């Protein structure tokens, strides 16, 4: 690596601005180049580190591309059967109510085979966090059509585009669960640009903090790319996502809790709860 002598003076421990969090292991992730899973894993790990809950967090890994998530997160994790992560998280949270519990699911896991578990867990108002990665395709198995595939979107099982008359309409899980009384925080974010990553990180942090409210599920959807499934380069897939996915899956908070957390003085954990995102650039890393 070519480095000037001046940059060698800067690269010192005391000048560190940003380094990969220690909650992530050093294993190289198996994801394709540019995949949003890697960024989202890192955000979850950073939030866990920031809140200081590494030993109090239990994650539930799904089936899908992120099935090996437990190899990358240095926390307690449990692998669930396909789509059953909310059911397993329900059990964990009820047995260990003082722990922070989250599930990490893709759209094939959460919106197809696990629709029933997701909706019923949200309707029961369990107190855990669901992180939902929506890339509109079954990435791991070879790019088949998913319930979240956009109308007229080409996949390997809809080579002429999704015909909504024959295959039905895409499922907006996030809007669906927002109508249920058992959810307290429902939001949709993305991780394709620095500003969006900062917003998504804030949303994930809030989602973890809202577990203390005991008002129900906090649900964070991350609209992500799938460069391999969409058969594009990572940059092209991000552009395609902005042009096509965002009009159908608009970003932003869909439901925020009405009752605010009682603020304790000097309590960093709760200070950000009552602030609504106005300027994402002010988030400190």
């Amino acid at each position, binding site marked *: *690596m*070519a*480095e*000037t002598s*001046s*940059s060698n*003076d*800067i*690269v*010192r421990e005391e*000048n*560190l*601005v*940003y*380094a*990969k*969090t220690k909650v*992530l292991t050093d294993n*190289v*992730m198996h*994801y*394709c*180049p*540019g*995949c*949003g*899973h*890697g*960024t989202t894993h*890192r955000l979850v790990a950073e939030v866990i580190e920031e809140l200081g809950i590494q030993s109090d967090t239990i994650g539930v890994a799904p089936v899908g591309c992120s099935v090996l998530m437990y190899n990358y997160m240095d926390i307690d994790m449990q692998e669930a059967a396909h789509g059953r992560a909310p059911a397993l998280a329900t059990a964990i949270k009820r047995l260990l109510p003082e722990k922070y519990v989250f599930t990490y699911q893709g759209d094939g896991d959460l919106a197809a085979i696990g629709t029933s578990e997701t909706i019923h867990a949200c309707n029961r108002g369990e107190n855990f966090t669901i992180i939902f990665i929506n890339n509109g395709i079954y990435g791991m198995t070879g790019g088949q059509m998913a319930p979240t595939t956009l109308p007229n979107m080409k996949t390997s099982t809809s080579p002429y585009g999704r015909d909504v008359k024959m295959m039905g309409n895409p499922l907006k899980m996030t809007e669906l669960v927002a109508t249920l009384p058992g959810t307290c925080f429902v939001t949709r974010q993305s*991780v*394709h*640009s*620095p500003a969006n*990553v*900062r917003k998504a*990180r804030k949303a994930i942090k809030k989602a973890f903090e809202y577990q203390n409210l005991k008002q129900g599920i906090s649900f964070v959807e991350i609209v992500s790319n799938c*460069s391999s499934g969409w058969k594009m*380069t*990572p*940059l092209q897939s*991000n552009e395609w996502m902005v042009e096509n996915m965002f009009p159908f899956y608009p970003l932003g908070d869909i439901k925020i809790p009405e009752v605010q957390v009682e603020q304790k003085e000097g309590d960093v954990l709760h200070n950000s709860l009552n602030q609504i995102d106005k300027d994402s650039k002010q988030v400190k*890393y």
Partner: protein
Amino acid sequence: MAKVKGAIVVDFEKCKGCEICVVSCPADVIEMTKEVNAKGYHFAYAAKPDDCTGCANCAIVCPDGVITVYKIKIVVEKIA
């Protein structure tokens, strides 16, 4: 007047060459190398290290978390 100067260190063996950091850099510091790493990916490097401001945009969008960012403030005395 203080000038901010940054530096990035890329763990190039873990870089997968997705180029998302290249478009995220506001100062166009990062480029991809012509040579490849052990996995066969062209990896990111600081082509113009003097322009880096240490904003960490590249590091926070990196899906594989391979970029580490450092920053210092250089105090330049005013000439009267």
